[in-house]
């Protein structure tokens, strides 16, 4: 088993104005990644930028390891230009995963923007049981929407401008869903990845409805393996590493 290896780029395809889907050929010795885990990926052979970049597992298929990434800085601008056949260094899979939902529970999966990259394979893993709440700024930013519909029990879309689904935030959409009482009360579990403020709002809703929630946190990372203590978030245990004790935390552990 090796979590540090070289991978060949099989495909690096634009799927949207500022998003690419990267497919890597990975060695069979790589441990099987689980939904919620991440990889540190080399984006540059030189020293500027210096550090590897952390990306969520999008999915692992027979084609290889897939990473869905947003182009938003120096590192991803370089990665975007990398051609098929290029060989890059990869570290992973790293960190914690979304815990498998118990047999009688209904997973409510929250994806805010590029957060879809982290939760998509979890929805697949739930094999038609998950209800997805998917939000973005506008309709054209909803990536993998059809694919998501194909593996979720239902997808509730919201956009900030109302160009698709409900107008508003995912938190509004989740609140409205839960406010509609059902008898008996279903055994919900919440799983979420997205912007910081969304995760905070989702955590508050989960607390209000007493639903266990698992959220994927994000912080700047240097090493990805727990050594540098750079990527901490504040939890009940003090400053805790996103790369090691996370990225998936129980929402009630986080101090906002």
């Amino acid at each position, binding site marked *: 088993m090796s979590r540090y290896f070289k991978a060949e780029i099989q495909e690096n395809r634009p799927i949207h104005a500022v998003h690419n889907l990267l497919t890597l050929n990975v060695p069979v010795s790589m441990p099987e990644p689980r939904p919620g885990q991440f990889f540190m990926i080399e984006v540059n052979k030189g*020293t*500027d*930028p210096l550090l*590897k970049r952390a990306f969520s597992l999008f999915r692992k298929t027979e084609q290889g390891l897939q990473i869905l990434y947003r182009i938003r800085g120096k590192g991803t601008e370089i990665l975007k230009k990398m051609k098929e056949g290029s060989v890059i*260094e990869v570290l992973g899979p790293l960190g914690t995963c979304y815990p498998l939902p118990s047999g009688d529970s209904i997973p409510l999966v929250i994806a805010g923007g590029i957060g879809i990259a982290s939760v998509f394979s979890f929805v697949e893993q739930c094999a038609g049981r998950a209800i997805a709440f998917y939000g973005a700024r506008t309709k054209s930013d909803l990536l993998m929407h059809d694919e998501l519909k194909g593996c979720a029990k239902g997808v509730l879309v919201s956009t900030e401008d109302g160009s698709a689904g409900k107008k508003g935030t995912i938190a509004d959409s989740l609140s409205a869903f839960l406010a509609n009482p059902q008898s008996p009360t279903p055994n919900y579990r919440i799983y979420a990845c997205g912007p910081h403020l969304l995760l905070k709002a989702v955590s508050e809703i989960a607390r209000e409805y007493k639903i266990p929630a698992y959220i994927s946190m994000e912080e700047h990372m240097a090493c990805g393996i727990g050594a540098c203590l*750079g*990527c901490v978030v504040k939890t009940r245990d003090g*400053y805790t590493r996103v790369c090691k004790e996370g990225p998936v935390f129980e929402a009630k552990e986080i101090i906002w």
Partner: protein
Amino acid sequence: MSINLSVRIGSLELKNPVMTASGTFGYGEEYAEFLDLSSLGAVVVKGLSLLPKEGNPPPRIVETASGMLNAIGLQNIGIQRFIEEKIPFLRTYDTKVIVNFFGDSIDEYVAAAERLSSVEGIHGLEMNISCPNKQAGWCIFGTDPKVTTQVVSAVRKATKLPLIVKLSPNVTDISLMARVAADAGADALSVINTLTGMVIDIKTRRPKLANRTGGLSGPAIKPVAVRMVYEVFKAVNIPVIGMGGIMNSDDAIEFLLAGATAVAVGTANFVNPGATIDILDGIVTYMKDEKVDDINLLRGAAHAI
């Protein structure tokens, strides 16, 4: 050709000159799946204090051109937990374990050194008098020669272990600080710690680090570090451990030629968890190519007229 890689740091014999830089290698266990720790000359662990420290709020790191700033704030589990939970693991490896430590007062430095000195499996101590991420006032341990003398002398009396003092580059004359630490009883000097820096977000108009300033490391600081090792080598007669932006074996060899007896690899561990081993292999290749059979022959060679 048989090659000698072993070097001496005071009474400590290292099997080779490649060490890890404190704060970049955790407590060793984080890297054990990526390399054989027994291959290293020494493992220098994350800085410890008598009591656990929470560290600074995030964001704690920001990338810079060919480097990074960090403001971790010396978060650590405390000496007691380190001894109970980490030393048993480290003891299973055939390498030297050097514990980096610090205190908030001279008394705390002394107490920490005393506590660490009685532990089997700790082979040396590295005194951090130069962390740039502490509150104002703390930095005088590493920047005010009188205080440096006091704190190093006090720790010297408290331990029989080889004592390495890690110097701050954030001073006007590093040779002076090197002499002061040597005269106060240091067995060796680590040169250099990070350089204080800042990055400002032009949108929010605020420093990007919550701590505002941080310590700059990585290739960006290497020429400064090489120059400082070169100066310190001239100034003192005790071994110098060179560090600051070493990414590959060529970088490491530069430090040896400047006067370092050993080198410590820091930020490179974040980029490539096997960096130390690649560097060690590269040094051996260089020695074979250059027909140098003893690593000690490289030390300070750049000073030859």
